[in-house]
C-alpha cells in the first residue's frame, strides 16, 4: 500500500483496477465471499458500483496467496468471432484461448518454483509438457523474456526445457473435457488443489454486442462436460443484466454454477466506507464523527443507495471538508458542502424511477409527470402554463388563448399547479425549509418559469 494514500485515490476514482495496491486492506468481503472461494464454479452478478471488480481482484488475490494447497489460476477474456457461435465453436475458442492463458499461468508458477515440476511423477510431467506445447500461443522467446523477470535460474531452465523439448504425442484429437480432466489430474500430481478460470471482460463485450455475447456465454455455460470436474472451476462475475440472462444456461439450471447476487446491508456499507476513511486518515473513524449534525448521516443513508460506489462517492466531499478543517463539520458547514456538491437528480424514464444520487426517491404520480417533463426539457426553463398543459393534462400543444383547444382559465389551475410543485419539492429537496433555496426544482423569480438543476 502507498503510505500517502490521498482522498482522490481513496474516494474519487472508485475504480478497483486502480486501487489494487491497497484494495485488500479496504476491502469488505460480501457475506458469501467464503463460499465464492470454494471449489466450485460461480456466477456472481451485481449492479454497477456494487464492487464486482473489487470482488474479482480479491478472489484472484485470495487464490494467488493460497499456498497449501495452491491453485493454478488464469484469466480468460473471450474473443468472439463475428458470427454467432455454436457450441463447438465456443469449445474451440475456449480451448485455444483459455488453455493458452492457463499454459502461461502454469509457466509463471514454474519459473518461481520449478521443484514442483521436477519432483512430479513422470506421467504428470509428460502431460504438462504436451499441454504447454499444444496450447501456448505466440512467440516462445517473448514468453521467456516476460517470465525471466521473476524467475529463479532453475526455474528459467525448466521452462526453457518445457518450451523446447519434443512432447510425447498424447492426445492428438482429444475432446475438451478429456483435456481438462487430464490437466487437473496432472496439476494435482504437482500439488495443486485445482484450477480456477476467471472469465473476464464479459460486461464490456455485452455492451458492444449483447446478443452475440449472450449466446456465446450461454453455450459455454450449457456445455455441461466443462463443469463435471470439481478441480476445474469457473469464476464468472458479471453485471446483473447479463447474469440474469445467463440463468437459463443448463450449467446454471443444473446447479453446476452457484449463483450469487452482490447485495449490501446498510451496516456493511457503513463499515466499508469507514474502513476506507480509516485507511486515508490512518486512524479509526466513524462516519457520524465527520459532522456534528446527525442529519448528514440520515442524508447519506437516503441518497447513497445500496452500493459501495454511492456511499464512497457521497462521503467524499464531506470527508474532504473534514480533512481541510481538521474537525467535525457544523450543520451550516455540511449543508454548504452539500450545496456545492449535491448528488445529482436522475430519472429512469423507462421504469419511471427517480433517483437522487444513488438513492431512489418516491414521487407521487402527479409529481412524476411534472418531473419527467422538466427532466426531458432539462436544458431549458418551462412556464407553469406549459407544465400544466403539457405535463399534467398531457396535451400535445399548450393552448395560448381561449379559443385554443383545451384552454382553461388561469385561476382554475394555478392553485393546483402550485400545490403540485410544492409537494414535488417536498419529495425531492432535502432541505425543506421555506427560506432554503431549492437545489433541483428551481423557480426563476419574477419570470414564472421553472427549470431543473443538478441533473445527470
Amino acid at each position, binding site marked *: *500500500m502507498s*503510505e500517502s494514500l490521498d482522498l482522490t485515490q481513496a474516494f474519487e476514482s472508485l475504480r478497483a483496477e486502480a486501487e489494487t495496491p491497497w*484494495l*485488500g*486492506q479496504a*476491502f*469488505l*468481503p460480501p*457475506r*458469501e*465471499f*467464503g*463460499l465464492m*472461494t*470454494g471449489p466450485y464454479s460461480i456466477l456472481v452478478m451485481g449492479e454497477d458500483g456494487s464492487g464486482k471488480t473489487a470482488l474479482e481482484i*480479491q478472489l484472484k*488475490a*485470495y487464490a494467488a*496467496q493460497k499456498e497449501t494447497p495452491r491453485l493454478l489460476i488464469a484469466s480468460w477474456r473471450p474473443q468472439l468471432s463475428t458470427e454467432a457461435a*455454436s*457450441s*463447438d465453436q465456443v469449445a474451440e475458442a475456449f480451448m485455444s484461448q483459455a488453455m493458452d492463458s492457463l499454459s502461461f499461468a502454469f509457466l509463471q508458477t514454474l519459473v518461481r518454483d520449478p521443484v514442483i515440476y521436477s519432483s512430479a*511423477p*513422470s*506421467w504428470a510431467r*509428460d*502431460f504438462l509438457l504436451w499441454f504447454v506445447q499444444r496450447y501456448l500461443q505466440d512467440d516462445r522467446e517473448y514468453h521467456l523474456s516476460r517470465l525471466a523477470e521473476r524467475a529463479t535460474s532453475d526455474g528459467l531452465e525448466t521452462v526453457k526445457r518445457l518450451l523446447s523439448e519434443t512432447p*510425447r*504425442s*498424447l*492426445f492428438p484429437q482429444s*475432446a*475438451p*473435457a*478429456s483435456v481438462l*480432466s*487430464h490437466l487437473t*489430474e496432472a496439476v494435482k500430481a504437482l500439488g495443486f488443489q485445482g484450477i480456477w478460470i476467471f472469465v473476464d471482460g464479459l460486461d464490456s463485450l455485452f455492451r458492444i454486442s449483447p446478443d452475440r455475447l449472450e449466446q456465446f456465454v*450461454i*453455450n459455454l455455460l*450449457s*456445455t*455441461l*462436460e466443462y463443469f*463435471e*470436474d470439481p478441480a476445474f472451476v469457473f469464476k464468472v462475475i458479471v453485471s446483473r443484466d447479463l447474469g*440474469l440472462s445467463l440463468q*437459463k*444456461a*443448463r450449467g*446454471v*439450471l*443444473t*446447479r*453446476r454454477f452457484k*449463483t450469487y447476487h452482490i447485495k449490501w446491508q446498510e451496516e456493511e456499507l457503513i463499515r466499508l466506507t469507514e474502513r476506507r476513511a*480509516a*485507511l486515508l486518515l490512518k*486512524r*479509526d473513524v466513524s462516519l457520524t464523527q465527520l459532522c456534528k449534525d446527525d442529519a448528514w448521516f440520515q442524508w447519506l443513508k437516503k441518497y447513497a443507495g445500496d452500493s459501495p460506489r454511492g456511499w464512497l462517492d457521497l462521503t467524499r466531499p464531506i470527508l474532504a471538508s473534514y480533512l481541510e478543517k481538521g474537525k467535525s463539520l457544523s450543520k451550516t458547514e455540511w449543508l454548504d458542502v452539500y450545496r456545492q456538491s449535491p448528488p445529482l437528480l436522475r430519472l429512469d424514464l423507462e421504469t419511471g424511477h427517480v433517483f437522487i444520487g444513488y438513492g431512489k426517491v418516491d414521487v407521487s404520480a402527479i409529481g412524476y409527470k411534472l418531473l419527467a417533463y422538466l427532466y426531458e426539457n432539462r436544458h431549458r426553463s418551462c412556464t407553469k402554463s406549459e407544465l400544466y398543459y403539457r405535463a399534467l393534462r398531457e396535451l400535445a400543444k399548450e393552448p395560448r388563448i381561449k379559443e385554443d383547444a383545451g384552454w382553461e382559465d388561469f385561476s382554475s389551475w394555478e392553485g393546483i399547479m402550485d400545490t403540485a410543485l410544492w409537494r414535488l419539492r417536498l419529495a425531492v429537496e432535502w432541505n425543506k425549509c421555506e427560506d432554503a433555496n431549492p437545489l433541483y426544482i428551481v423557480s426563476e423569480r419574477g419570470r414564472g418559469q421553472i427549470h431543473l438543476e443538478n441533473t445527470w
Partner: protein
Amino acid sequence: MKLHWGILNSIQVSVFSHVSMWIFSVMEKFWLNHFGFRFDPFEHLEASADSNLNRYLIGYETFSIAWMESPALLFSPPGGGKTALRIYTARACWTGAGGYQPFPIHYHLPHYFQKGNFSTLEEHLEQIVHSSVHALFLAFAYYPLIFLKAPPTLQKQLAQFIFTWIPNIDYYLEVLRDGQPDRIAAQLDRSYQLHQTPDPSLLSLLCETLEKYLAEQPSPISLSIQKIFERLTKWITQDLGFRAVYLLLDGVDGFPELARSPGFAAESLVNLFANAPTWTEERIFLKGFLPLEIRTHLQARLEKQWPAFGQVELKWDEAMLADLIRRRVYAATDGEFASLSAVSALPSVQDLELELARAVYPLPREALVLVKQILFEYEKRWGENSNSEKRIQVEDIEKALAWYRTDQAPIIEELASIARG
C-alpha cells in the same frame, strides 16, 4: 463478528488478514463437528463426484427399472436425479467384487456434432466401443484378477484390443503404477470411479502383464465397428463371466444444441434405440437416462420398439424429498439421528425436512441447495458469535428460505418453464 483488520499497525499486512477468519469460519464447515456429522452429505450436487451416493439413494422403483434385464428409458427433468441413478446403477454392478454381475459401460454423446449430423448406428457404436475399452481397462485396474485369471490367449486379445483403442496406453500404465485407479478414471471418465484401491501386488502384476503384451507385435485387426462391438460384448458376457452388459446412456442434454432442441436430440438417438431390443439376446441392455423433454419426440420415432423398453419417470414429491434429506443426515451421522430437527432449535413437533421439501421446486438438487444455504446461514451466524448455541435457529432457516425465494427465483422459473414444455 468483529473483523480484526490491522491496517493501522502494518501496511505490509497480508491482504487477507482481516477477512481470513471469516472465510475460514465459512469454509471450514464447523457444523460438521457441531452436529456430529462424519462427512458432508450435501456437498455434491453432481452425483458422479459423490463417493457416498450408494448410502442414500432413494427411489427403489426407478432403480428396479434401471437394474432389470431389459432395455429401459428413465426420464427426468434437469436436476431430477438421472445421473445419480446411473452412477448408482453402475456402482451396484460392482457390488460383490466383480464378476457374475452386469458389466456397466457409460456412454455420453460426444461433444462435437459434426454439423449436427451424429445419428447413425455406426457413429454411436464407435463411441460406445471407445467407452467400453475405458470400462474394461478400468475394470482390470480396480479388479486385476478379472484380467489375470483369464487364459493367456484371451489376455493377449484383450490387451491388444485395449492398446488399439487407447493408443497412449503407456501413459495410463504409468499413472496406474501410482496405485490409484481412481486417478485414471478421473482422466478417462469420472463415472467409472469406484473410490477404492486394489491389492498393490495384483496391480503391479497387471501392469507388468500388460506391458509385456504391449512390447509384442500387435495383430492387425480389420473389422467393421459392428463386429468389433459384437466381439467386445462376447468377451464380457461369455469369456469374462459377466452376466450382461449394461449400456448407460446419459448427458443427452449436456450440450446446448441438444438441450434447446428435444426433437434434434431424439433424432440423434433414434437409430441407437431402434437397435436396443435386438441386443437383448446377446444380453446387452441399453439404459437411457434421458431428459423428460425428449420422450414424446422419441416415442414418435420409435413406435414399433417402444413397448420393448421398461420405462419410468423420476418424479419427486414432498415426501420423497424430505426422505432424501433424512437419509443423508442418517448416513452422515452413522445413524445417530435422521433429521436436522435433532440439531435445530425448532419445536420437536415440526417436521423440518417436510417443511423444506415443500419450499423448494420439487427436484432433489433444489432440496440440497436449500439445505446447504441453511447450513451456510448457521455457519455465518455462529462465526459472528461463537458463544451462540450450536443448533440451527429459526432465523437461519428463514434467511435461507428468503434467499431461495428471491435470489433463486429466476432459476426456479426457468425450471418450471422447462417442465411446462
